[in-house]
């Protein structure tokens, strides 16, 4: 059965359709094109024509023209709209014109760079010209590095390598820096939060060195659809950009199905789980031979679903290679193999985390199943875009979980279909991040009195501080690096923590092998001792977690359960920046806090029934994070009138409401912020609800929330009041079992007081 037939059949199936809240058909769209622009080198036309390209899509032509005018350009288009042409054509034209020209390509991951380079190779080979394109990353052999540095016209790398491998050794890259004409950064929507704030500073360093070498490179940036591509690009590079977003690429017909699993316990408002529903929809696609990708929110769900689907197609020998799991933590070789399998059609079903959201080339798939809302509109569209890249009908299923945001989306499909996607926020001036890169910059090239660092604030303060600390040595107007450390090695661009944990399978005592890795913040949750760690649907038990050495030792097991850890969070105040009264006697404040996270216990949960089988203790050190926060303090006289257990339930209700509302109005991913409540807060000594940026130093979300501190409470109240449930449900204040019978009432009462 093909996709159209399947869609027709489902639409006639009343049992299925009664839980569908919306079946949206997005009609096919024809191509809009323009002739090859004058700025394109004539030698490129035959190569394009050979590929059946006789004109450019409008966005390709417009971005080339803007680049030719000398502007920095940001191109925003969906998956598979031929955006690589937007940078390959101007770069190749420039090098064809002047063979001394150099270009630097930055991709967020190695896998992406490998894909893009092979396309570039093909074009260069067909032209038969001497343009050398090299990938420079951790996998580049030492012997080849010299050639890359000397002769590479186009150097393809990632921000991490630029940061630690290229910039601190810039004197070895004279040819590149002296002749750098274009800096291409693809997938800039991934550079939000910590990663983006780091990249912005890496680019400040890069531009500073270009100035030293006398080059003035132009930027060509590409982004998937987000709300603020221009703002993001300008914050990243610190200069104005020209936005090109008139997508001229064609698109096939797409069906978008919103599915809300049926309620199975009306009293408690409990719905059938998203996982079993996904299991049957993905299973149906698999049985019908429709190549599909299933997205799950957590690594754990990916593993559980992979196992279910594998069980459906296992041959007598137990092999189920047609179904693969895919997520961060798999080793690169394994991932490449899965990607190849998808392109070649040997893999029919892949279950993935958002790791496959990015433009990794896995070819065109027919269907996409989202098990739960990925958290942001941008990322939901990215995931949906995996189905139907070519012309032809494709189908996307969104399966709502009982999480409030999922319920909001599935019940308000219009919000999803018409709301502009989220903002990508970053804060290059986050003091932690700025200071780290400032050190790197000082190492790379001494600062002189009066020097700036991009548009970073108060460079003289930073210089003074680092001199006081003895890290810089100020003499005759210059600040010289005078410490033994190599500052770039102290920063990891992708998280605040430097090192990753490696996961070692010790099942075979003679052959210990590394099967994956995990970042320092996630490790306590998933790799604590006795955790069941899942990899490609296989179960392992963590035998030992060596926290200091960052190693987890696991052994293959076969048990009927998985584990889920509980995280305990403690907050303490570092500094209050602003405080404002509101609603007569309530207060809102903005400041800095320390968040201490500790995993203390875990649950064992049975497969299939998902019932809790038991508990276990976890003994691991705490992890600390300094970040920005804002908080609402309840008026003492209001709080005094409510019994403390009722107050607690009401505050929990408000916190839950804010968790739903804030991501929508701050336009961020739910995991970017955290909302907690404290009946007697150590910060204010009063009942307080705290919202903080969920990354070290913060990226500006708390500031933004502080600016809408009253609006957020109003919107929270509106959600609670509009919700038809009586005592609370997962879509508003939380289920009755969690907030108690008076939770919803108390929450609304408190919110009324606060929004007076």
């Amino acid at each position, binding site marked *: 059965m093909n996709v159209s037939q399947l869609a027709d059949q489902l639409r006639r199936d009343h049992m299925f359709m009664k839980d569908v809240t919306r079946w949206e058909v997005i009609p096919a769209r024809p191509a809009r094109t323009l002739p090859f622009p004058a700025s394109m080198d004539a030698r490129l036309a035959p190569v394009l024509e050979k590929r059946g390209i006789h004109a450019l899509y409008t966005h390709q032509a417009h971005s080339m023209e803007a680049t030719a005018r000398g502007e920095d350009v940001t191109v925003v288009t969906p998956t598979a709209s031929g955006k690589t042409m937007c940078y390959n054509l101007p770069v190749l034209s420039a090098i064809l014109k002047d063979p001394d020209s150099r270009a630097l390509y930055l991709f967020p991951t190695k896998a992406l760079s490998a894909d893009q380079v092979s396309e570039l190779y093909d074009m260069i080979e067909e032209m038969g010209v001497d343009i050398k394109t090299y990938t420079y990353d951790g996998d580049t052999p030492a012997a080849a590095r010299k050639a890359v540095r000397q002769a590479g016209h186009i150097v393809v790398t990632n921000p991490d390598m630029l940061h630690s491998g290229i910039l*601190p*050794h*810039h*004197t*070895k890259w*004279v040819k590149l820096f002296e002749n750098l004409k274009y800096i291409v950064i693809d997938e800039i929507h991934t550079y939000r939060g910590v990663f983006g704030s780091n990249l912005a500073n890496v680019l400040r360093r890069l531009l500073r060195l270009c100035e030293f070498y006398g080059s003035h490179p132009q930027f060509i940036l590409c982004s998937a659809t987000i709300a603020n591509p221009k703002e993001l690009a300008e914050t990243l590079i610190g200069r104005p950009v020209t936005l090109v977003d008139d997508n001229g690429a064609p698109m096939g017909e797409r069906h978008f199905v919103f599915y809300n699993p049926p309620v199975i316990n009306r009293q408690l408002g409990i719905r059938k789980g998203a996982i079993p529903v996904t299991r049957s929809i993905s299973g149906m696609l698999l049985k019908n031979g429709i190549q599909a990708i299933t997205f799950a929110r957590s690594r754990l769900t990916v593993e559980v679903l992979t196992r279910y689907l594998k069980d459906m197609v296992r041959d007598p020998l137990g092999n189920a290679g047609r179904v693969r799991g895919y997520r961060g933590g798999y080793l690169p070789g394994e991932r490449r193999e899965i990607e190849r399998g998808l392109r070649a059609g040997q893999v029919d079903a892949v279950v993935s985390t958002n790791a496959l959201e990015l433009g990794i080339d896995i070819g065109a798939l027919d269907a996409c199943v989202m098990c739960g809302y990925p958290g942001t509109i941008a990322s939901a569209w990215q995931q949906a875009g995996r189905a139907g890249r070519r012309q032809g009908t494709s189908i996307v299923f969104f399966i709502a979980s009982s999480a409030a945001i999922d319920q909001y989306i599935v019940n308000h499909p219009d919000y999803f279909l018409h709301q502009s996607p989220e903002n990508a926020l970053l804060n290059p001036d986050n*003091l*932690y991040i700025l*200071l780290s890169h400032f050190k790197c910059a*000082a*190492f*790379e*090239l*001494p600062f002189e009195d009066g020097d700036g660092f991009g548009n970073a604030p*108060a460079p003289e*303060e*930073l210089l*003074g*501080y680092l001199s*006081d*600390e*003895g890290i810089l*040595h*100020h*003499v*005759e107007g*210059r600040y*010289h*690096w*005078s*410490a*033994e*450390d*190599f*500052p*770039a090695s102290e920063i990891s661009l992708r998280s605040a923590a430097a090192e990753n944990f490696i996961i070692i399978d010790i099942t075979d005592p003679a052959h210990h092998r590394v099967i994956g890795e995990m970042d320092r913040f996630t490790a306590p949750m998933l790799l604590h001792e006795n955790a069941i760690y899942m990899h490609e649907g296989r179960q392992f038990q963590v035998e030992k977690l060596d926290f200091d050495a960052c190693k987890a030792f696991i052994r293959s097991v076969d048990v009927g359960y998985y584990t889920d850890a509980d995280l305990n969070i403690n907050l303490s105040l*570092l*500094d209050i920046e602003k405080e404002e009264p509101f609603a007569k006697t309530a207060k809102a404040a903005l400041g800095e806090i320390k968040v201490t996270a500790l995993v203390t216990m875990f649950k064992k949960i049975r497969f299939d029934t998902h019932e809790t089988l038991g508990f276990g203790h976890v003994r691991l050190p705490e992890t600390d994070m*300094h970040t920005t926060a804002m908080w609402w303090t309840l008026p003492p006289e209001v709080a005094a009138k409510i019994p403390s257990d009722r107050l607690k339930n009401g505050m929990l209700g408000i916190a839950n409401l804010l968790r739903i509302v804030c991501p929508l109005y701050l336009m961020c991913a739910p995991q970017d912020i955290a909302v907690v409540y404290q009946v007697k807060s150590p910060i204010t000594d009063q009942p307080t609800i705290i919202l903080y940026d969920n990354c070290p130093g913060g990226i500006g979300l708390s500031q933004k929330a502080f600016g809408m501190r009253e609006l957020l409470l109003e919107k929270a109240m509106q959600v609670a009041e509009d919700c038809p449930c009586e005592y609370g449900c997962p879509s508003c204040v939380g289920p009755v079992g969690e907030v108690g019978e008076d939770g919803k009432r108390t929450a609304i009462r408190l919110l009324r007081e606060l929004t007076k």
Partner: protein
Amino acid sequence: MNLRDKLRAVGGTGNAQKRPAETAGDCQHLAVYRPMEEFPGALSLRAETLRMMSDQELPDDLDPRRILYLDTETTGLGGSGTVAFLVGMGFLTDQGFEVHQFLMRDYPEEPYLLRHVAAGMGRFDVLCTFNGTTFDVPLLESRFLMNRMDRECLDLPHLDLLHMCRRLWKLRLGRCNLGRLEEVILGKPRVDDLPGSEVPQRYFTYLKTKQISLLDDILRHNAQDIATLCVLLNHMADLYLHPEQITFGEDVYSMGRALERLHRTESARRCYRLARKSRVGDLAGSALAVSYRRTGEREQAAEIWRGMIRERRGGVTPYVELAKHEEHYRKNIPEALRLTELAISLLNEPSLRQGETVQQTKNELQYRYHRLRRKLKETENHGNYVGVQGQQGHETAAGREDG
């Protein structure tokens, strides 16, 4: 909190210090003179001897007084923020050995220091360092570039003693750092020496306090390193001229390998022969045989393999090599098969540790064994068939199989 306080909270410690600024018109220049007796034979070093040791292009009329021995002391392990604050340059004169040291008393003196280095290097034909190809020269290159100065003075033929020493002594010593070489090879352990790893911190402390005496240890250490370079080079040259003086078989064998690398086949074989009686006799024997095979002297090679088999030396290697010889060169398939079988049975001896390499060798041998069996069969069948046509057809068939 003001920004400075915040920075302290973010950055950790608050150990602020103030230092007096310093101005300079030149960097500090020091000189150390060592008597000729410490460098025996150094003035008679010839280019042809060095050519046995290095593939650098050296002038024919090389004057040992025009070799520059150079070593730097730096503020770190590399990257463009690392600075060479002390550059020592040593050379032979008719009277002895002179070391000239250029010290940057503070960062503004770096351009002066670099100018001295550039001018100094211009007066020499050959550069000699220890690990200079990967460390000192790229570092100086980087410093010249950062100060927008010409780096061409660095383009001298370069004798990097680290690599030359490794080739000679790594097999016996394992690690080949300068301290260990002084102790074991030259028999002069250093006393009261400042460990290299403490150099950067010592310099930073000096920068803060400006107590120049803090640098005495570094200056002494640097001068000693440079003198050692000259002694070491001449000691090695002596060994290359007289390998029979070398006490350790490992070293003679290693020298053979080093010579062979530079295509000095005859000298290399001389070393291998000398080393055959030693602890590494098997290695030397194999190397000698491989050397013969490489120049097409297959019978000599085979003779060595046969000798090793007779003396039960060298493990399976001689069997394997001889089997190749019989198969491909002598076309004696049954003999090749017999040798392969012997090799396999040798590998199956229970005393042998069954590691991965053994397994790999086993697999290769099995593969060879089956190929030989197949060949033998084909040759037999073919032989019967071509028997009618005569000898010539048989040879053609064998030749084709070999290809």
